[in-house]
Every structure is written in structure tokens, then in C-alpha cells.
């Protein structure tokens, strides 16, 4: 049964999978540009969170309509992949519907697949409508939503619809051919059976349509897989590790820089012996930058965040600064981090940051500096943040936009002393009188003067 078609298939599948692995290695290398951070603690709590937030889509349901539509596409993707497994086996060994032996189970699976495929088409059509006709603001607006992110989203949605249509073409032709032969094929096909005559009744044409549908579906999946690393659609993979490694501590707890603690302790107590500085492979001490100027100053988790971003804009749509017209958009911070990472490090097969470097909006006055700070993200954006955690709360895949904003701010203040003048005045007040305002410390207890309470009889 194994013929030339099967050998061609095997080669194509091997190339497709090989290319995907090659791209994943590039992305891994990029993510590992980041600073080390230990997130191996509490595996059971992390697993639980991953099951709830990534697998269970918990945070999506803050917005019910897109959540339900997204659920169709998500469940469709998971379940239809079982059929893709069959397609792979059939393709390699020249079998036809190899899992058909499962009988009623197979019929159930095929029926569910068909219904899900139809729901995926409906959901994707509505998503296209929301993006291109009703222009849902968070999907349509924002300086970061340039040509490529918009094209990317539409490409994915159209591809998904076409892939589902190919699946139906394959099933319909299979059904009609069986009908013409007067036989039955394994499986139940509630949707295809409604359209069984849609493709005519010429056996040769049907056979060709069936093969084309089959080939198109599997080639489409291999191509799609290799498109993922260049796309926001990469979240279908990255959501799981990213949620697993998300912050388990209260959102209000920001990181503490231990190197600074050692410096201050040595200042306060001359007898304090700070630990030896970290050394690199050649034994030279590592010069540590305070805060983040470029992508390698962020942690690998912060870089992983940017590969997980689906550009859905939930963060930006709840950001108080963005709502009131400030330049800050948390989504832009995350997307800029990814662009800069791929400019500095590796880029996958399709994606090149300069595909969409053009800003189109003059308000973001970036400089020519080849760094994340200023080259992509401006101080004006960073200083608009109220650190309210609304973006972090809104993100369905637990991206921590705020941590990146804070690390960039730290660099501005600690390495460049480039805080706005009013904040420098606040720092001076704290240093001099132990309060952010210019009141003498000796007045701190004056509030207690002349305070009365009703006496109890």
C-alpha cells in the first residue's frame, strides 16, 4: 500500500517538523538571553494555576462573548488534533481512516470533530467581523497595532477557516464516494452528510477533491506550525509554560535587589562583609546593571512573557493611563520587548522585526539608540504608569507587564538619575525628613494634639 505519495508525505512531514524544531531552538536561545531567575518553587501550585488559567481558560471568562468563541476554537484545536494524528498515520502507511476500528468511539469522535469544525468556522468569522467591521477598539487601536499585527491576526483567522473547509471537503468526498460504491465508511459525519451532494457525483473528481482536501489540511497544519513562531498565535504553545512560571506572590510585592541591600548594609555597618561578587566563566566579576536598559537585563520570564502575548489588548484597555490618553500601552511594552529581542538575538524563519518597524504615529519619539529603553520604549510611557496592576490582572496568560515597566524605571533612576524633577524633589524629602513632602520630621506626631474621645461612664 505504501506508494510514492506516502514517501513524499513522509519527507514533507519530516521537513515541516524539522523546521519547527529549528525555529523553537532559536526562540529558546532568545529567551535565555534574559537574566536567570529561580522559578522552580511550588510545583503543585504552579501546575494547578496552569490547569486553571491556561488549560481551563479561567481569566478569559472575564469577557464572556469572546471567551465562548475562543473556547470553540481552543477545544476545536485540541480535539481535531486527534484526527490529525490519524491523518499522519494514514499518510505514512497509506492506510485509510486507520482509527476506524474504534467503532462507536470513532463515530463519536468524528461527529464531535465535525460540529467543532463548524463552530470554529463560525467563531473565526465572528472574530474577523470584530476586527475588520465593528473594529473592537482594543483590537483596532493603539500605536503598537501596526500593519503586521493586524495582518497576522487576519491571516490566522482565514487560515483556520480554510483548514476546516479542507477537512469538510475531505469528509464530503469520502462520504459521497462510499455512497456511490454502496458501502459505508467508518465514522459519523453530521455536517458533511448534510452537504453530501455539494461536490457533485463524479467519482474521479470526488477522489481528487478528497485527496486535495486531505493534502491541503495536513500541509496547512505543517505550514501553520512553522508560522507560529513568527506570530502572536504562538500563544497556543507558550501560554502553558508562561502561566506555569507566573508570579505566585502578591501582585503588590515588587522584586528586591540583593546587590543594593549588600551595598547599604556595608554603608550602615563598616564591619559588614558583603558576599563576593558573581564572576563570569573567565573569573572576571560581573558588572551588574541596576534595572533594565535592554532585553538582556530582563529575566528569561519577562522575555518569555513577550513570546506569549496574543496582542489581545485586554491590558491596554484597562490601563488607567491609556484610558485617559497617555502614551503608555502595556501591550506595546510587551510587543516592543519581543521586537527588540529578535533584533538583537535570533529571529524565526518568517518574522523579521523590520517588517513592521514603521511606527506611523509620531507621538512615540524613539531615538536611534539600539536598546529597548529609548530605542523602543520612551521614558514618557514609563512615567505614566500608576503601578495599579490592572494590566497584570487582565492578562489571560499571566504576563507581568508591570515588572518590565518597573525594571526600566529603575534603570532610568539608578543608572541615569533621569527621574522627573518632581520625583527627585520627593526623593530629597524622604532622604532629609523621612516623608515624601517637605514637612519637618519633628512635626510628625502633631496629629495627636488635642484629641478627645467620649468618656465612658
Amino acid at each position, binding site marked *: 500500500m505504501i506508494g510514492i505519495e506516502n514517501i513524499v508525505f513522509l519527507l514533507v512531514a519530516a521537513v515541516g517538523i524539522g523546521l519547527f524544531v529549528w525555529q523553537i531552538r532559536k526562540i529558546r536561545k532568545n529567551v535565555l538571553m534574559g537574566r536567570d531567575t529561580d522559578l522552580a518553587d511550588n510545583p503543585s501550585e504552579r501546575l494547578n494555576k496552569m490547569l486553571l488559567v491556561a488549560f481551563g481558560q479561567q481569566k478569559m471568562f*472575564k469577557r464572556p462573548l469572546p471567551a465562548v468563541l475562543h473556547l470553540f476554537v481552543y477545544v476545536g484545536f485540541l480535539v481535531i488534533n486527534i484526527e490529525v494524528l490519524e491523518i499522519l498515520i494514514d499518510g505514512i502507511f497509506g492506510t485509510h481512516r486507520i482509527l476506524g476500528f474504534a467503532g462507536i468511539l470513532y463515530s463519536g469522535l468524528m461527529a464531535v470533530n465535525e460540529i467543532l469544525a463548524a463552530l470554529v468556522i463560525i467563531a473565526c468569522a465572528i472574530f474577523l467581523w470584530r476586527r475588520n467591521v465593528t473594529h473592537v477598539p482594543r483590537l483596532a487601536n493603539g500605536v503598537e497595532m501596526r500593519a503586521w499585527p493586524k495582518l497576522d491576526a487576519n491571516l490566522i483567522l482565514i487560515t483556520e477557516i480554510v483548514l476546516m473547509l479542507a477537512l469538510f471537503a475531505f469528509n464530503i468526498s469520502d462520504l459521497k464516494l462510499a455512497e456511490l460504491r454502496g458501502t459505508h465508511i467508518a465514522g459519523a459525519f453530521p455536517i458533511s452528510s448534510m452537504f453530501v451532494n455539494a461536490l457533485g457525483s463524479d467519482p474521479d473528481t470526488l477522489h481528487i477533491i478528497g485527496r486535495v482536501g486531505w493534502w491541503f489540511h495536513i500541509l496547512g497544519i505543517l505550514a501553520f506550525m512553522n508560522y507560529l513562531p513568527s506570530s502572536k498565535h504562538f500563544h497556543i504553545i507558550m501560554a502553558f509554560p508562561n502561566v506555569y512560571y507566573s508570579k505566585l*506572590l*502578591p*501582585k*503588590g*510585592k*515588587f522584586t*528586591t*535587589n540583593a546587590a543594593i*541591600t549588600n551595598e*547599604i548594609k556595608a554603608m*550602615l555597618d563598616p564591619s559588614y562583609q558583603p558576599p563576593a561578587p558573581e564572576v563570569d566563566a573567565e573569573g572576571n566579576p560581573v558588572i551588574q546593571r*541596576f534595572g533594565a536598559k535592554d532585553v538582556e537585563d530582563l529575566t528569561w520570564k519577562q522575555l518569555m512573557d513577550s513570546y506569549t502575548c496574543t496582542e489581545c489588548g485586554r491590558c491596554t484597555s484597562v490601563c*488607567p*493611563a491609556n*484610558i*485617559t*490618553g*497617555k*502614551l*503608555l500601552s502595556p501591550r506595546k511594552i510587551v510587543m516592543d520587548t519581543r521586537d527588540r529581542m529578535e533584533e538583537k538575538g535570533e529571529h524565526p524563519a518568517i518574522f523579521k522585526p523590520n517588517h513592521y518597524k514603521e511606527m506611523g504615529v509620531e507621538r512615540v519619539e524613539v531615538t536611534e539608540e539600539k536598546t529597548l529603553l529609548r530605542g523602543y520604549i520612551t521614558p514618557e510611557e514609563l*512615567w*505614566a504608569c*500608576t*503601578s*495599579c*496592576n*490592572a494590566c*497584570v*490582572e487582565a492578562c489571560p496568560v499571566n504576563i507581568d507587564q508591570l515588572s518590565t515597566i*518597573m525594571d526600566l524605571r529603575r*534603570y*532610568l*533612576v*539608578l543608572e541615569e538619575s533621569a*527621574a*522627573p524633577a*518632581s*520625583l527627585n524633589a*520627593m*526623593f530629597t524629602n*524622604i*532622604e532629609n525628613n*523621612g*516623608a*515624601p*513632602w517637605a*514637612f519637618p*520630621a519633628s512635626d*510628625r*506626631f*502633631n*496629629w*495627636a494634639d*488635642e*484629641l*478627645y*474621645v*467620649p*468618656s465612658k461612664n
Partner: protein
Amino acid sequence: MEENKRLVKVPTMAQMAANGEEPEILFWVGCAGAFDDRYKRVTRAFVQILEHVGVKYAVLGTEESCTGDPAKRAGNEFLFQMQALTNIEVLNAYNVKKIVTACPHCFNTIKNEYPDLGGNYEVIHHSTFLQQLINEGKVHVKGGEAFKGKRITYHDSCYLGRANDIYEAPRDVLAALDADLVEMKRSRANGLCCGAGGAQMFKEPEPGKKDVNIERTEEALATLGDGNGVIATACPFCMVMMNDGVKNKEQEESVKVFDIAELIAQAEGLSK
């Protein structure tokens, strides 16, 4: 009236230590509670409640200093740690175990960020503390101003809410007033910031279309509807921002901004 009230002598940790005593709780006043004229009234209301229920408490008085929160949020980790390490030294010297504060920023910093630097305490925000007093029956919420039927909307503080998942305690406290509690559309985890967090309190906002506190005040006023109402807060920065917002909208005659401690003190007949 004179014979019905007594002067409060607020005890300090230094006095307690001199007498060989340790208080049950340290009341961390915070810079706003000590210096901001409006928030000093909240500090005084909270002390009136502490005196009224007879909790053994003390304050640091002039030994207190900024927790370092605004410095940290503004990116000045160095100054933050200087403040934190100095404060921790004072707190540990007095063997402090339990801290109550009316400021969510102080609360978050001491509770979450001091442990890394050697400061380990049980830290309670005054909303949770008041909730406990009400649940234990120590505060009855009667004898003073009646709030029955009055419209109150609670504005969530980011550093209490999203930062530390405290959403119900302040609402439980307000529920004890038997008032007409109304929720803004953006509340709890979806609450909108007042605009002062992240050291914004100490700088001019970046260029934009609108100030964040105006956006939030408009939402609060729309929620309260026509007529009188109260915007309840549990954070000194939120209080400043909401007060400014109400004034900007020229609604200060009909809509008042109160901290939850002030409302409890009023209902209990402690402050007139």
C-alpha cells in the same frame, strides 16, 4: 459636654519600652496620616476607635519614617532599601510583632517587601482590623450618625485590592452601617485606579486627554446618582484624588469623600 469627653494621650513605643511594656498592636500612621491635613482626620478617627474599644496600642511618633514605597515605585530601589532597613532596625529593636496601618501602600510595603530585608511582622490593614472589631462585637455602629438609606460607593485601592486581594473587608465594614451600598461598574479586581499610585501622587501626570481621578470621579458620581452620597475610600492617596475630583466637578456640597474609619467613628458617635 466637657465632662463627657476625655483627652487622649497617644502612647508611643518609646514610652511603652521605658515602662517595660509591649503593646498588642503598633499603629503605623504613615506620612499622609501624619502630615496631610485631610488624612490626619482619618488617623484621629482611627485612634478614637482604638481608644473606644480599649486595644493596647502604641505609635512610633517621631521615630516613624517613610516606608520607602513612593521611592520604590518611582524606581529608586536604593532609597527604598535605605528607608526599609532603617525602619526595620527600629521595629525590631522594639520587638514589634503586629502592625496595623490605614495606608494600603505602607501595608503592602511592610507586609510584602520588608520580609526580604529582615522585617517579619503580622501586618493588618485597618479595613481588616475594623472588620474584626465589628465581627467581635466590639464596635456596634450605633450611638452616632445614622447612615441608614444613605448612598455610599466604595472605591477600591489598587494596593489593597489587586495588590493584596483585599476586596471584602472594607465592604463588610461599610455593610455594618446599614447604608445603601452601590457598586461602580469597575470594582473589585476590575477597579479603576485613582491615578495616584506608582509615585504619580508626587508628580504631574504625563500628557493625555484627561486626569485619571476625573475619569474615576465621574464614574463614582454617576453611580451615586442625583443628590447626596458618600465616596468611601481606604487609602490616603485615593482620598486626595477623589476629593480633588469631586471639587473639580463642583459636587463637594452634596458628595463627601470619607475613609471607612471616619464613617465607623461617626456611626459610633466618637467624632463630632
